[in-house]
């Protein structure tokens, strides 16, 4: 006899531990070189806009993203930066959104013939399949799953996994003043809603932030390729060269392995990339490169200074707002 129907009522809330996407009133982002905070205006029904925006530079070495070990090297510096940003945007005291560096998480695209109906069983299956990519025990991972496509005998899944202790470290930096995160995502995931869905051909997204680079290939609104790496470059010129070289490699790989042609190439560098990097990437991929910038109407109520900060750093916040809209 199948007793599965009893599981849910009896073990209510003990199934999948991950939450669904939700739009918080305040968003914080921690990156190795800066801390960002944004307060969102409007209600859940009305269109949201960014009401306040603040950014604070971090000393080099205060934050070192890694999926398996402690990320915060200088907790005092990070806490100070967060309190300064909080002073700008105001402390809501409620649950907040938290964007963490790509280097602290692992993202993977997986295919299954079928998935269990139970969310907890699906999470266990994904955990087991990701075990080779995780530099820690799969049981320690917090996992979030999004089904990209479901056809007969073929299910594609986008999974994000991070070590619970690492995420708790980021949460603890904000915990004393707030009620815990309602939304927790890696930076590049928040950029996906900014990509146009109408594009029939493939799209390449290059996210360069704080000497880390994440490359994503999206075909038919489905991520097909995801790679995050740390850049060794010491100067902006070296960075531009590294990014261009990485873009060229991915372009070749996409043609060879995915048999897909790229229609658009997007570059999102934070702070904003100079013309040198854009030109270098365009030359490497032999394709026009578009800058992925936040929509200006989302920051219409910001002061000129905050608008400038929003333009340089606010793509992740814009992505979160766009995803909820």
């Amino acid at each position, binding site marked *: 006899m199948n007793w599965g129907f009893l599981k849910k009522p009896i073990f*209510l809330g003990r199934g*999948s531990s*991950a939450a669904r996407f939700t739009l918080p009133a305040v968003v914080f982002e921690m990156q190795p070189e800066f801390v960002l905070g944004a307060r969102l205006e409007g209600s859940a029904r009305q269109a949201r806009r960014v009401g306040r925006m603040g950014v604070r530079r971090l000393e080099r070495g205060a934050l070192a993203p890694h999926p398996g070990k402690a990320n915060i090297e200088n907790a005092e510096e990070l806490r100070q930066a967060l309190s300064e940003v909080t002073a700008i945007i105001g402390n809501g005291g409620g649950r907040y959104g938290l964007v963490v560096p790509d280097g602290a998480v692992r993202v993977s695209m997986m295919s299954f013939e079928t998935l269990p109906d139970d969310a907890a069983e699906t999470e266990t299956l994904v955990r087991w399949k990701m075990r080779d990519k995780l530099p820690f025990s799969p049981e320690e991972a*917090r996992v*979030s799953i*999004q089904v990209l496509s479901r056809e007969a005998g073929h299910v594609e899944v986008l999974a994000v996994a991070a070590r619970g202790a690492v995420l708790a470290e980021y949460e603890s930096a904000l915990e004393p003043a707030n009620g*815990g995160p309602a939304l927790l*995502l890696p930076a590049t995931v*928040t950029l996906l809603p900014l990509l146009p869905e109408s594009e029939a051909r493939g799209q390449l997204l290059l996210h360069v932030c704080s000497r880390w680079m994440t490359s994503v290939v999206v075909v038919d609104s489905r991520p097909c390729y995801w790679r995050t790496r740390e850049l060794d470059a010491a100067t902006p010129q070296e960075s531009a060269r590294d990014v261009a070289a990485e873009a060229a490699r991915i372009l070749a790989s996409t043609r060879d392995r995915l048999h897909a042609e790229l229609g658009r190439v997007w570059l999102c560098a934070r702070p904003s990339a100079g013309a040198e990097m854009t030109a270098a990437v365009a030359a490497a991929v032999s394709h026009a490169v578009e800058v992925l910038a936040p929509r200006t109407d989302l920051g219409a109520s910001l002061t000129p200074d905050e608008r400038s900060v929003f333009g340089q750093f606010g793509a992740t916040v814009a992505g979160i707002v766009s995803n909820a809209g």
Partner: protein
Amino acid sequence: MKITLNLSIAPSPRERYALAWAAPTSVLAAAGLVLLSFLAVRNFREYRSARQARLDLQQVEAKMREQEAALKKNLERPQLREMYRQAQFVNSLISQKRSSLPELAEKVSKLLPGQARLDGLALTHSGNALTVRLAVAGTSEQDIEKFLGNLEDSADFADVTVLSQGVAPEPEEGGGRVPVTVVCTARYLGGQEP
């Protein structure tokens, strides 16, 4: 593309619905508080009235005790004590008057069997009690035993005590049987007030 991912920990049902349950729980708690307060006030009022009733009764009891003490004190006055003694004397006279000797002789005669006769009868007073001394002679021991049985069963006499029993030294005139005699005492109840 829309994303549904989120690495934050989902709030438990308890956390999620705590706020929603807070309002009805507060209303129920407030209603309970009002009910308990109402019952407490009612119980306090009942307690207060019961306490007042007890105090009233205690006051009445104290007054009655005072009256009793006053009466006792009054009774112990020499004039009243003399009057009490005289009343007792009058009562004893009344009681003596009520015990009539012919009536006593008639009651004893009814207890005698056919062959027995009453030889002696005396009535003495000892305090409030009346004691009868009887001397009976019969032709056989059976007559005497029957008389004593009748005497004990009688409602007019109690505490029968045989003082002596014997056979007479001479036979009766005409060659009759030798008489058997008995002398006894009994407490006479017939003269007392019911």
